[in-house]
């Protein structure tokens, strides 16, 4: 079934029997498609989490500066304040 590598030299491999443009453009599109559809969601996830963290810590820092909550860290305050009444 596996009949061995079909090309004798690297240049033959790149030439693809005269169909270099067709074969390589399909594989290039495929590669871009695979990488883009994995990299973009991962990058977006990072941005979402970063934005969320910034919002929470800034609010937490505000609460801390107000000095009402003694030894609790800022984000704990913000979590406790905003998590109240949540079902989960």
């Amino acid at each position, binding site marked *: 079934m596996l009949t061995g590598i079909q090309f004798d030299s690297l240049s033959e491999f790149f030439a693809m029997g005269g169909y270099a443009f*067709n074969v390589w453009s399909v594989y290039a599109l495929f590669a871009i498609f695979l990488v883009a559809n994995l990299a973009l969601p991962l990058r977006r996830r990072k941005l979402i989490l970063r934005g969320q963290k910034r919002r*929470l810590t800034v609010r937490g820092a505000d609460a801390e500066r107000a000095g009402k909550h003694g030894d609790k860290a800022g984000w704990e305050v913000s979590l406790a304040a905003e998590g109240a009444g949540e079902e989960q």
Partner: protein
Amino acid sequence: MAGRWQWFHRLGSPKWFYEKTTRWLPWLIGVMALLLAVGIVWALLFLPPDYQQGHTSRILVVHVAVAGASLSFFPLMAVAGTVTLVWRIKLADMVAKNAAPLGAWFTFLTLATGSIWGSVSWGTWWEWTDSRLVSMLFQFFLLLGVISLRTAIESAETAARACALLSIVGCINVVIIKYSVAWWNTLHQPPSPISMEVGSPNGPEFWVATAIMIVGVYLFLAVSLILATRNEILERENKAQWVRELALRSR
């Protein structure tokens, strides 16, 4: 009643989905990467050139796998839409919302690879007599319709239910379009039967490589859909305690 359906609603819980996929994703990505690597190397290096099509048969391995996966989007969206309409499970809509653009990308890649292959096989980049590509084009339009309906409706709840209904109607229509376009064009090349015989045009050296690629591409579909759905969960559930804790633990 409540007990019997508990598993179903737990399955629909975004938190449950997020935690489960956190555990599954490394495995899925690993198997996907392995299969895609084997499929691509096999198709590029080891696949014997076709006696008629020469090295362009290497294109078909990718094209067939991507085309097969693109056909699964409307059924997927229709099932997710039914779950959204009947049980109002949020997770189903999160999947459906991200499936539409991903499906449009898959369909576009199918059209692009098909016409690049066709430029050698038919001598032209677009051939109306190939009914499969023509019905793919109409599937592409319908997916764009679902996407633009989603962006046009402001209320997320209404958009979810409207897109769910359109996906169900669209799924029925894609089938009707497929058969009527094939009827319209009886000249089209029927799917070639696969063969067990080594050395025949559709022999095992072709279809085994294609089968590996098909499974790899389906896993890729699952992985990228899961990744997008997880982002959707993080955005929509941003008031939930567990999402906040996750965000604070992140770098």
